[in-house]
């Protein structure tokens, strides 16, 4: 090969290599810039979505709950106006539906508050025995109305505990509600065990049913709006907000929630560690 050709080839090769290098680096900078832009757009979209979500939650308080309370009040007034038996039946159905809707709206709002971290617990000294008795009475009636057996057992609550009783009641009510709803025959057991040790009370609440049992992928039921059976022909309606709300509240109480599949039915349990006080503290 002639020397000028050799030099020319070397020159051209070097130029090509450097140009390729430039091209690769330009592509790299461009790609990274695009990734950053996309990330920013996504963050902005998420921020806008959160603002809308907050606005919806605020509006829902007013636009959904207030009319429901008005309807509920009016229905109660109608019931007091000496209606005929047929009218009373219709009013009772309307009251039942309104209560279900009120519960649903409340759960949705609670779930939204849990999601954005605005839901706060309001612990106060309370005797949980009273709350368990109310729950056992209400859900015992529901179970009996459905032809199910119902057994409730809790230890005597000698000492008041410091907890948000309303939220704890909400947790147990949701588990009992699910148990009644998904048990076509058999019985439901509601058990509470409490171990007091050094001013602390380790509470374990169990709800056992002989119902249809949990699906294999039951963990997804703890996610909002997930259903065991999502088909339109499913046995029970609902939005899939109960268990996520329970999971959120238990987490807020630093407790534990678990489900166990039984040969027939399901065992749901909640463990929370509560502070206890002497009985004089209740005043």
């Amino acid at each position: 090969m002639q020397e000028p050709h050799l030099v020319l080839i070397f020159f051209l090769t070097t130029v090509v290599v450097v140009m390729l290098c430039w091209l690769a680096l330009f592509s790299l900078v461009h790609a990274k810039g695009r990734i950053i832009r996309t990330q920013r757009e996504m963050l902005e979209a998420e921020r806008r979505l959160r603002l809308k979500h907050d606005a919806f939650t605020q509006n829902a308080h007013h636009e959904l709950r207030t009319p429901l309370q008005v309807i509920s009040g009016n229905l109660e007034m109608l019931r007091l106006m000496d209606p005929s038996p047929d009218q009373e039946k219709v009013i009772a159905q309307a009251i039942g539906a309104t209560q279900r809707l009120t519960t649903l709206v409340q759960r949705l709002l609670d779930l939204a508050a849990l999601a954005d971290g605005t839901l706060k617990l309001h612990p106060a000294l309370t005797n949980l025995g009273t709350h368990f008795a109310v729950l056992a009475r209400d859900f015992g009636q529901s179970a009996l109305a459905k032809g199910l057996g119902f057994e409730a057992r809790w230890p005597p609550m000698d000492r008041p505990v410091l907890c948000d009783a309303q939220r704890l009641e909400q947790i147990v009510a949701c588990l009992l509600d699910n148990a009644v709803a998904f048990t076509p025959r058999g019985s439901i057991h509601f058990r509470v065990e409490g171990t007091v040790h050094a001013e602390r009370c380790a509470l374990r609440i169990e709800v056992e049913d002989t119902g249809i049992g949990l699906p294999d992928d039951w963990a997804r039921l703890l996610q909002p709006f997930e259903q065991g059976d999502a088909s339109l022909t499913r046995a029970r309606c609902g939005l899939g907000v109960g268990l996520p709300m329970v999971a959120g509240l238990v987490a807020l109480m630093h407790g534990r929630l678990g489900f166990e599949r039984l040969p027939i039915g399901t065992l749901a349990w909640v463990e929370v560690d509560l502070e206890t006080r002497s009985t004089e503290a209740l005043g």
Partner: protein
Amino acid sequence: MPKSFLICQFILNNVLDPLVLLPMLGFAWSRIRGGFERPRWIGPFVMVVAFDLLQGIVFTAMAYRHLNNQWFRHVFDPLVFLGILWILFLTQPSSRRRRWQYFSCGAVGIVAAVVGFSLNTMHFRNALFTSVMSLAFLTFCTFELRRMLLLDDAIPLERQPVFWLYTGLLILGSGTLIFNAISNYFLHVLPKSLILIPWVVMSCVYSIHYVFIAKVFLCRNPTSS
């Protein structure tokens, strides 16, 4: 003396060689004006750049005095190479794997320098070592740039000093690889009229490298939005 030789010599001496000062000028400017990024590796990097500049000046001065300066490069190029490897190592958090990679590369470089010296003698360029050096820069900087791209941060690449460091070394490694491998062949076969052309081309590549290294010192501090 052939005319092409004189033109090339003029370009090399008066246009391209002075560009070796660019990195230190960039550093001086960054210190005078302030407000530029100063990552933790920038101090050692300045030392390496200053050492490289110093040995470059001595090398050029020896050339002007018509002294054999190849032995000087044989000795000091490996030191500069190890210094740059050290800086590349410092640019990212240390890990066992990373330490092992850079240490191995340094060891391979030293072996190449010794073997290359015995092969090329004191009168020619150390083709083996310089080729290994180019390959090392090419490989490490490609991987580091890839890692930077995949990193989940929101800082554009061109605003990070480390990007300009990798880019400068990548261009140097890729642009000089062919030359380093065959430069001694050029010295053997090219007539005097053509002999300086490859060196002019290489100086152009080095100039791009110096511009990028100067930019390492001139990345503005990120401003809060």
